[in-house]
């Protein structure tokens, strides 16, 4: 962790994870490291499992399914069940990307899996064993949706803490050259003129071998001139 003061959004995330909040929504512009933070920040010693929601996914991704293995069908647990079980002693973390894109049946299953520990349970159809989330299970949901009203109330009700992540984590910025770090932090949340961290990484890499104008042209396209002009204006010595 870098020694500098964390940006407000990341400071909040650190505070809620350190103080026992087990259901968190991270929302905001893409490319700011929400999923990465969900998978790595806080207590994830018992394992962190990622679930990317799409319209075509099924409950097999959430709870599990029978898979053919060596001529026999074998039960393979889904991400949510794995997170519930964790390392066998303590529950792990489930990171759900873009839950709003999940289909109706998957969404319903996810709601059940993300319910409070007292209410959440799931019965294995093969063994009849009833699973419950082990103590320490946490869930982080990430989405690019800006308005929480756009998410179903049943979902937002399960996630009382919502944090808007508006810039990349300082640790993620360390990969960039020093002069580009503050710029990448600002431009992550620039609306329609947003520039992702990945674009800055490409630009940074290219300019080591090419002229900055050429590198900018390749990465930023038609916006290259305006972006370089903006950097020149911002860099005027004070």
């Amino acid at each position: 962790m870098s020694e500098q003061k964390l940006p407000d959004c990341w400071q909040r995330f650190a505070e809620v994870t350190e103080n026992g909040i087990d259901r968190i929504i991270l929302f905001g512009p893409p490319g700011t490291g929400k999923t990465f933070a969900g998978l790595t920040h806080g207590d994830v010693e018992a394992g962190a499992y990622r679930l990317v929601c799409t319209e075509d996914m099924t409950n097999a991704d959430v709870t599990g399914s029978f898979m053919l293995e060596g001529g026999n069908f074998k039960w393979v647990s889904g991400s949510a069940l794995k997170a519930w079980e964790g390392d066998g002693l303590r529950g792990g973390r489930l990171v759900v990307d873009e839950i709003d894109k999940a289909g109706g049946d998957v969404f319903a299953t996810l709601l059940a899996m993300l319910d409070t520990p007292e209410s959440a349970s799931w019965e294995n159809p093969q063994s009849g064993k009833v699973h419950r989330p082990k103590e320490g299970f946490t869930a982080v949901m990430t989405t690019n949706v800006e308005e929480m009203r756009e998410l179903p109330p049943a979902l937002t009700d399960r996630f009382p803490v919502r944090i808007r992540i508006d810039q990349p984590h300082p640790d993620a910025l360390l990969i960039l050259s020093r002069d580009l770090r503050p710029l990448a932090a600002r431009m992550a949340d620039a609306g329609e003129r947003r520039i992702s961290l990945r674009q800055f990484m490409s630009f940074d890499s290219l300019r080591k071998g090419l002229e900055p104008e050429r590198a900018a042209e390749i990465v930023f396209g038609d916006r290259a001139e305006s972006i370089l002009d903006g950097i020149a204006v911002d860099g005027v010595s004070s």
Partner: protein
Amino acid sequence: MSDVAHYPEPEILTRRDREGGRWTVEGCAPKRGLPFTNIVDRIMKTPVDESDMSRVIRAHEMMHAKVSPGDEWQAWIDRKVASEEALRSVEELRVNLLCQHAGFHMRKHLSDDGETADGERAAALRDWRGAVLMAVACAGTASHKKFLTGVRRHDRFWGKCLLDISKRAERFMERAYRQGGLADTSVDNTSSMAPRGFAHTERIAEWIDRIASMEPPQPEPETVEDDEKDENEAGTTGGGEVEKAEDSDEKSNGTGEGRERAHSNIGVGPAREGYGERLKKVTPDRQEYGVPCWGVLEIEKLPLVTLVPGTVGKKRIPSQTGRNPRRLHRILTDPQMRVFDRTIKGMGGVIVLDASGSMDFTHREIRDILEAAPGVTVLAYSQRGEEGPNAWILADKGRMVDELPDMNAGNGVDLPAIEWGVKHKQRPSSPVIWVSDGGVCGPSQGFSNALALQCIRYCLRNNVIVVPHLEDALKQLRHMRQGRKGRTKWPRQLRYVYQDANGSSITSDYPSTEMEGYEH
């Protein structure tokens, strides 16, 4: 030319006095008056085509977004150090100079070709102030040469003067850039004003205001030879001499002696002799104390327990003329037989007393003032610390304090106290006298030329009588009681400041205000 639209990227910019955020950016034609930057609501409108001119306009607007005041504009105007027009004009200069340093070719590309007509119009209408402000605003850009060309078509001398003024403004700004802090957007600790770099704009704008308010150079009857020469130049080279002058200036490209000598021909000609020399002596404040500012006037009303006998308000006195003979007994007792009444009014007035450590007055002297001018209000001021009252009403309506409060600290609120005096005078004709040695300064600051000039300007504009000692005030009150006009006796420090800033003596520039028979 391709159809690619180049929208500026103001989200890239950082400032220390404001949070960043999303902007609304719109396109417009590359014409003067259309592009703008609204820092408060984060709206920017610029041309988006690929031309060089549009690119420098975008850079210009981006620089405004980077360094210009947002909602603090009004606070800077309210300081009244410089006029709003001058501030806006000099801010253009600062922004263009910063763009030039950021690598944009403002000298080559920033022009919309309408400047020549503007220059002609300003010179033809003898709009000296407008011409000065425009010349400064476009200094350092391609517009500058065109504007001066237009001016010189009507008045060659004006062209020379304006070239000199704008080049000096550029040079002062360049010096500020080299010293650092011209693009500083932090908040000034002393005055809480932001952005701090704008203080340079204010300082030069105050100077520009003084120049713009000078009497413009008078038109000189042109000879036929001159007319022909002008026409030839306009027709063949488009104002060749201006271009030559500008070229020579660009070649010197610095602040050295050669640059100064390039403009030393100003003032040549019988009708305008000395004008250019005088212009050169008008200089901006050196601003040694960051952003000088006044404190907030906090007046404490002390109990006015001592009654000083005298005329406070209206009073009836005997008269030889009138309608009703109310004093018939005077036929026998008064040699002048004043049997009628007439009403006289007390003169009133406000005395604003600098009660800082460098000044000294006693309870007896305040009483003398009241006796000389009953009905006068006496306000003393001195900044004693960060908090608490800094001004005290010592006398009002014929009554005065029993004991003087503990004062004799810093100045802090000179101008606000004078403003209070002007605002609280009993009648429009009542005099306001400011008693001060002229060592004005803001709270916890040193002496400031800018603040002193502000006081001088205010006193001249509002007919405030300025005297260095209480006994001079007393003398003036007695004069005025006899129906004579009150006169100023400028304190030595204010005279020096004025001389230093304007190259001329305040007593010669404003002789009507000066005390008769006063030796400097």
